[in-house]
């Protein structure tokens, strides 16, 4: 079975090569077909692999395949090798499954764009890189996918490169990610330095013997890897690129900046769970950053008017939840939320894309309103996704978010404050999502007549993926219904062999759940649901029932409003504190150190040399008389020396 793991990334790679090498020479239908088919085939193989893996006894669910040696350098032997275990199996299903739907959707969305060939080439390259990332069997090979997805993200954000804002956003994404990647690299170096290998299986097996639990080294490793994760998964302080990434085509935002790439950091943490459980301090950092990001981004999300930006900040916030989960050593919950989030957030973006498509590329929600009757399928599917993200009981997001909240409270790494932040964020999430729904689909139709004239429901190729994702957003959470409801948590059970961590603890929780803590869990769950419903009601009052209230509120708290609309001025602060000093400093190095100092020194030497020569050259006057005088004086001096000394 392991022999065909390589097919999963291979198909998109072939698609990329065909579409890339024959760019501009293939008709649109062929490009669409190749792009979609390659990812579709991958998905089929992924499903087969999943069932193969499931057929194996629980303890043996690890399949490895090595193709060839990539970097052989002494003790460092990095393979082009794949590791399929329950964790990567979940990931490849999400990547190829959601990826396939988004490819289909893209055929409709990009149907009027002349750059479709380039678009699908990049999209296939992205899928390939993402699959490498999740299937790699070592840190460096994972890094190949890691930087590969970063590259595709750069290319796709800047897809409409004639727009300055788009190419700026692409560049920003790449550079901010590189900052994180530097941390990732350093983390890898410490691991190699200590363990002598970068192979996941070897590192995880050796780690308990090599690193002292709770020691400075393993904590540093975990924090450095987490720095990499904050870049890729847009956490404080490196989240700033993700909102700008919305310059890219909307399906790209759905695939890369919501469902897959940005979750790579969470995947990496889960993959390294053995290390993280040995470093409680690092876990605390992860949990605090995660919780802070979740809250911070959610507050910004309540004040944005661009439909995609609301979703972007929502993504940052939801990723914060996933890290909060990892930070309290509930990696399974993090991955569970990763999966459900992939469904509902991809759907939200695709639905937003459908709205934008129908609205002749307008993204400002202040110019929308009342779209419900024009775009019924988009409306219903988007509403379902909104219910899922808001955490309405029964929907996928409810189970995964509740799991995280409960773990942040009950885990031995948890804390009541973490729960409170998560709780408040849940309320804000429901609020800004329903604000979006009301501003877009309800109320007055605020668009111009011309836009209104063009308003239409999107074509089948776009609505079909919406429907499939809507189904997943509703039922996708049912695989991981918490123990407290008296059922087995299949998802947790499936991942248990890979995820380190407090297995015993989980068991004890299961036991404890039978007793008093079950009551606590239901109580907290109930509190969250009440808050969510209250927030939805708030959004209803402010943006549906009495829209004038929201305007007057905004006026009353104009300072706060400005702070939120301007995203706490973080971009400006970074610009003033980081970017500008570096550029100014570089100019100083060039103009002052290089040109003035070093070259000045050297040219100065040359000048002094020339000056001395100028003087020395006067000795050669060309006059016989002066030469004769010097000659005679010389003879006299020499004779005198020999006679009288």
């Amino acid at each position, binding site marked *: 079975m392991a022999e065909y793991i390589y097919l999963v990334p291979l198909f998109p790679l072939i698609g990329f090569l065909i579409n890339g090498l024959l760019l501009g020479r293939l008709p649109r239908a062929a490009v669409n077909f190749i792009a979609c088919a390659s990812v579709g085939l991958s998905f089929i193989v992924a499903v087969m692999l999943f069932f193969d893996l499931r057929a194996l006894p629980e303890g043996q669910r690890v399949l490895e395949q090595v193709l*060839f*040696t*990539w*970097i*052989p*350098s*002494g*003790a*460092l032997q990095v393979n*082009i090798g794949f590791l399929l275990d329950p964790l990567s199996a979940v990931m490849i299903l999400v990547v190829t499954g959601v990826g396939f739907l988004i490819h289909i959707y893209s055929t409709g969305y990009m149907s009027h764009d002349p750059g479709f060939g380039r678009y699908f080439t990049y999209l296939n390259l992205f899928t390939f890189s993402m699959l490498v990332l999740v299937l790699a069997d070592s840190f*460096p090979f994972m*890094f*190949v996918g*890691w*930087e*590969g997805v970063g*590259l595709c993200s*750069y290319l796709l954000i*800047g897809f409409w*490169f*004639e727009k*300055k804002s788009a*190419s*700026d956003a692409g*560049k920003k994404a*790449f*550079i901010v990610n*590189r*900052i994180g*990647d*530097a941390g990732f*690299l*350093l983390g*890898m*170096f*410490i691991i*190699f*330095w200590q363990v002598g290998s970068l192979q996941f299986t070897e590192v995880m097996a050796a780690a308990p013997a090599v690193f002292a639990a709770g020691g400075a080294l393993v904590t540093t490793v975990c924090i450095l890897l987490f720095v990499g994760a904050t870049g890729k998964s847009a956490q404080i302080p490196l989240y700033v690129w993700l909102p700008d990434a919305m310059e890219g085509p909307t399906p790209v935002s759905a695939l890369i900046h919501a469902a897959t790439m940005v979750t790579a950091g969470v995947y990496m943490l889960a993959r390294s769970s053995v290390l993280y459980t040995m470093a409680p301090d690092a876990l605390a950092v992860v949990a605090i950053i995660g919780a802070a990001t979740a809250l911070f981004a959610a507050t910004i999300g309540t004040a944005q008017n661009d439909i995609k930006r609301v979703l972007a900040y929502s993504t940052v916030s939801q990723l914060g939840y996933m890290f909060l989960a990892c930070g309290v050593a509930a990696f399974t919950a993090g991955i569970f939320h990763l999966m459900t989030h992939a469904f509902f957030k991809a759907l939200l973006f695709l639905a937003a894309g459908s709205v934008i498509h129908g609205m002749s590329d307008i993204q400002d929600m202040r110019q929308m309103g009342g779209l419900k009757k024009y775009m019924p399928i988009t409306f219903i599917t988007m509403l379902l996704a909104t219910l899922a993200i808001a955490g309405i009981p029964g929907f996928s997001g409810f189970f995964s978010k509740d799991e995280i909240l409960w773990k942040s409270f009950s885990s031995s790494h948890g804390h009541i404050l973490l729960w409170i932040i998560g709780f408040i964020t849940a309320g804000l999430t429901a609020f800004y999502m329903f604000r979006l729904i009301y501003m877009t689909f309800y109320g007055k139709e605020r668009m111009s007549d011309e836009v209104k004239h063009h308003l239409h429901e999107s074509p089948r190729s776009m609505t079909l993926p919406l429907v499939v994702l809507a189904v997943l957003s509703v039922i996708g959470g049912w695989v991981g219904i918490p123990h407290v409801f008296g059922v087995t948590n299949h998802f947790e059970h499936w991942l248990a062999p890979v995820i380190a961590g407090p297995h015993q603890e989980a068991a004890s929780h299961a036991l404890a759940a039978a007793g008093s803590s079950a009551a606590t869990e239901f109580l907290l769950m109930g509190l969250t649901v009440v808050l969510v419903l209250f927030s939805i009601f708030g959004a209803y009052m402010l943006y549906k029932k009495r829209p004038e209230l929201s305007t007057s509120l905004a006026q009353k708290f104009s300072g706060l409003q400005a702070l939120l609309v301007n995203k706490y001025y973080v971009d400006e602060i970074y610009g003033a504190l980081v970017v500008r000093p*570096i*550029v100014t*400093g*570089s*100019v100083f*190095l*060039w103009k002052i*150190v*290089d040109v003035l100092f*070093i*070259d000045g020194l*050297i040219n100065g030497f*040359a000048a002094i040399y020339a000056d001395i020569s100028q003087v020395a050259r006067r000795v050669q006057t060309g006059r016989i008389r002066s030469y004769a005088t010097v000659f005679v004086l010389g003879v006299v001096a020499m004779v005198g020396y020999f006679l009288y000394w």
Partner: protein
Amino acid sequence: MIGDILTYLTFFPVLGVVLLLLVPKERHDSIKSLSLIIAFVTMLISFLVYALFDPLASGMQFEVNVPWVNSVGISYHLGIDGISLLLIVLTTILTVLAILSSWNSIKTGVKGFYISILLLTTGMIGVFVSLDLFLFYVFWEVMLIPMYFLIGVWGGPRRVYAAIKFVLFTMFGSLLMLVAVLYLVFKYHSMAGVYSFDIQALVSMPLSFSEQAYLFAAFALAFAIKVPLWPLHTWLPDAHVEAPTAGSVILAGVLLKMGTYGFIRICLPMFPEATVAFLPYICVLSVIAIVYGALVAMVQKDVKSLVAFSSVSHMGFVMLGLFTLNLQGLEGSVMQMINHGISTGALFLLVGMIYDRRHTRLISEFGGIAKVMPAFATYFMIVTLSSIGLPFTNGFVGEFLILLGAFQLNTWYGVFAVTGVIFSACYMLWMYQRVMYGKVTNPENEKLTDMSARERIIMIPLVFLIFWIGVYPKPLFDRIEPAVKNVLEQVSRAKSVQLDPVTYELTRVKDEKGTVTDATVTFAPEQEEATHE
């Protein structure tokens, strides 16, 4: 026949020079075709050498050792190991591409131009095959003269200043090197009774620490100027900006590697104690070069000087790798030499193509080029990615190993050097954005033609190499590894280090207290045996 293959390889371009002298100087097409054929055949010979080279054998291969001037111990001693092999192949490939790139852009003094290039090729190959210091020195100087002409005759407006600066910097270094060479030869005479210029013989000669230190300093200065190591780099941007495309390609692609090659072939094996002692200083300078070069590159206005400063940064990586003195660092360093030759060579070729069209290289003159020249933009993107070391392009493999090695040596070197990875993305992508993206604002850019067939033929082999080395570098590693292990074994003769026979890692010898001694302290008592003849 096969035994003499290095001789044929080295002097084949000279044969071309002789033939070129017979062609009338106004027959441009014949001159160009002839030199292309000569360079191409030279490249094929180098491929043959690559094919015949036994990757498993350690030590020198294809050795030729004929006494030449017996009375002073000069011999015609050639031979290559994996390191020189790869650098030679790089040289011959870049020469062919450099000639192709000059096809339409050099219109005056055509004959002299191609003669210079072919002479330069012999000089470069000669340095890489020499195992005799006299030969080494001769070839070293042979390279200088054609390069001087390439910059000074076919260069830009400030070509004379740049050419003289280039020559004076290099000459200054090589004079000190000459003194050091002579010292070594006389010292050998005083110990063995005969003169010898043979590198292998001189390597085995014991030298006191202070001798090593002075000799190391003399050689290191010559090599560091060539690399160029900060703060000796200021000749490079001028030389690059003024040089014609072919000159820049060869200068960046091969000539800079002469410096690092000198370190690995002469400084490290001959003066191991001094190497260990000077290591911290050189590492610090290398790290400064990495960061400084990248920062200054970021604010350049001319694409060529941007690439020149990026070379300072990248060559800083190579130097850092060399002085990590561990297997990963050294292997990474050799890989980075090759990779920098490919990526930077490719960048200069691309810049040359746009210069041929617009006769300017100022970033501000461009914008929106991706719209007018999509193929050019694609090639440029691939080379840009290779230059910033994206995994699966050639740039990553070397940089990764160097950083890994540097980190093992000293955490802080690794931490500071890794910022180079971030800054390289900044300056390359910012430049790419300003040149390629946006709307076409300058009317002169509206009618640019995309790459011609000749230009594509130039770029395709480089792109192939970029991905080949990025994805499957094993064949190169197989050839580098024995050579690098040899170097490490030679360095391990220093008393202050120990070589782990399995991992080939050099570790500092610990004193009784169990703390690692600073190398300079260990050497202090040895200074009394210093002899100055």
